[in-house]
């Protein structure tokens, strides 16, 4: 998972409010498909990984397998292989996104912990993503997110995101999702 050393110390309420706003802003940009603005909120070496969910044979084993990913992306791949799909000259041939699935993030239970580096935070949150394809009924997917968020002179930036899904048999209208 994240190799960041984590202390047990929660950040201040002020930092919690700041992170809450940052995650809300980030979700707003993703849900409204303002992907290029979203990309400005992540570090150049940003990684986005979702390990494969599974039902293990023990309550003490993780409900994911990190030997293999379900999603494994970088800022480069998100920009060049995800977001460019909606460029004016090719969006009409991006069949799965035309018309797009409507996404709505619900982000709750944000926990911000300080790390050994003063400008880096370990930010965990619960997320429910709703997806609505065409006239279909909404589907939802829930997960726990493990983010590393760093403070830069220009503002907060997402350095990495690791997402553990709750659902092992994934039932969602589209699997290319920004959780």
């Amino acid at each position, binding site marked *: 998972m994240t190799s960041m050393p984590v202390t047990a110390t929660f950040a201040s309420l002020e930092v919690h409010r700041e992170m809450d706003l940052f995650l809300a802003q980030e979700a707003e940009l993703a849900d409204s498909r303002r992907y290029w603005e979203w990309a400005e909120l992540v570090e150049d070496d940003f990684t986005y990984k979702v390990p494969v969910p599974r039902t293990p044979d023990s309550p003490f084993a993780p409900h994911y397998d990190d030997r293999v990913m379900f999603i494994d992306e970088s800022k480069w791949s998100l920009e060049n292989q995800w977001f460019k799909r909606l460029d004016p000259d090719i969006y009409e041939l991006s069949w799965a996104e035309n018309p797009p699935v409507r996404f709505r993030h619900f982000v709750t239970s944000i926990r911000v912990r300080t790390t050994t580096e003063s400008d880096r935070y370990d930010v965990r949150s619960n997320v429910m993503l709703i997806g609505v394809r065409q006239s*279909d009924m909404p589907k939802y997917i829930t997960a726990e997110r493990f983010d590393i968020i760093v403070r830069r002179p220009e503002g907060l930036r997402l350095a990495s995101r690791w997402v553990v899904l709750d659902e*092992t048999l994934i039932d969602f209208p589209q699997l290319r999702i920004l959780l």
Partner: protein
Amino acid sequence: MTIIDRSAEPLTVYRRSWGDEEVFLTEMDRIFGHCWQFLAHDSEIPDPGDYVTRKMGRDRVIVARGEDGEIRVFLNTCRHRGVPLCRADEGNSSHYRCSYHGWTYTNTGELRGVTYQPDVYGKNFDKSKFSLFEPAQVDSVCGLIFATWDPEAPTLADYLGDAAWYLQAIVGKFDGGMEVAGTPVRNIVRANWKTEGENLSGDGYHTMITHATALELGLFATPKDLEKLSDVVNPRFTGRTVDCGNGHTVRAQRLPVEVEGRKFWGYPEDMWEQFERNLTPEQADLMSCLSVNHGSIFPNMSFIENFKTNVDGPDLHARYIRITIRYPISATHSEQVWFFLQPRNADPEWCRLSSLAYLRTNGPSGMFELDDTENFVGISEASVGDYARTKPVDYLGGLHHKLTPPEVGWPGRVVDGDRTEHTLRAFHRRWNELMKVDEAATPSIEV
């Protein structure tokens, strides 16, 4: 016996095939009750006691390696009152103990313990009559484990026939063999189980349209990419499709380049010598300068080896190997399981690139899969209507394509031509045979 080769004849399939519950229930009996079905790769259960839970049709099964090292398949249900014995996706256990009344089985399938036996069943209860239910036949090829409920089914080798040669060219060319990289992803696809299978059987016709943006964004070799690999780049990709018999099919598309010797681009060059050694010259020709090689094993398994370009930045190309199966749920829903395979002991940096080549293109969240799925879901949605289901789909593509010269040496009925419905006809003709559809009563339109 006279074999009538009908691959070059038009074929009509009615749209009810993709959305009718009665057709679906007949399939469960006539197809999933009899055909060999892919379950797992032996690398998933390397040690005694290891198991994974899978499905055959709609039946839940346990695929286990017993304490004796043998691989067995059990219906995942207690002989007593029907409760599942394994609830996890994978694990290791010497015994399976039922949560209801505690009947306990060895991982070789024998009933070992019956709770309060003398009190409930008397002293003479014969436990040997209550072993776990098992498929009639279990066998494997290249580590790929299959099973069938039908004791009359041909052996796996006979069932696969010529398709085994093509499977071996993909998964059998590495010195250390292959392994499934971790737990397979599973997802619900709101489409009939046949839609993706018929596409992967060999639909080279849809690529330029369905995957137009993927091509535009550089995930499919362009002349610019190819000019860095070869001095002679031709304008057009070429390909062949194969009807292997029994509904099994293959499509092989070659990069449009002229080269000296064989080039296994997408793998580290120090691996190439293995391929020359482990493959026949004809198989090596098939895998050289490969763009994509994919096919379907009837009824619900597909395989693909694919060369993908610029997957993690400019000039970062790699091949990946993927197997998928689709469990039927209903006429319009299926469960897809995704196996990503890697050669054992391969260079870690290449493995990383191969994994990205898979995930970002034909993985569950990959761009190719995204656009494909929209088509598959749409076919089922548009086929359930009461008028639509009476209307035909006519498979007429590539009827005029020529047979590949026999000296090429590939088994099966091989046709030169990439944009074709040759393999789709083979898939549906096998389906017709098993479903006892009278083709004469459902004539195709004249062409």
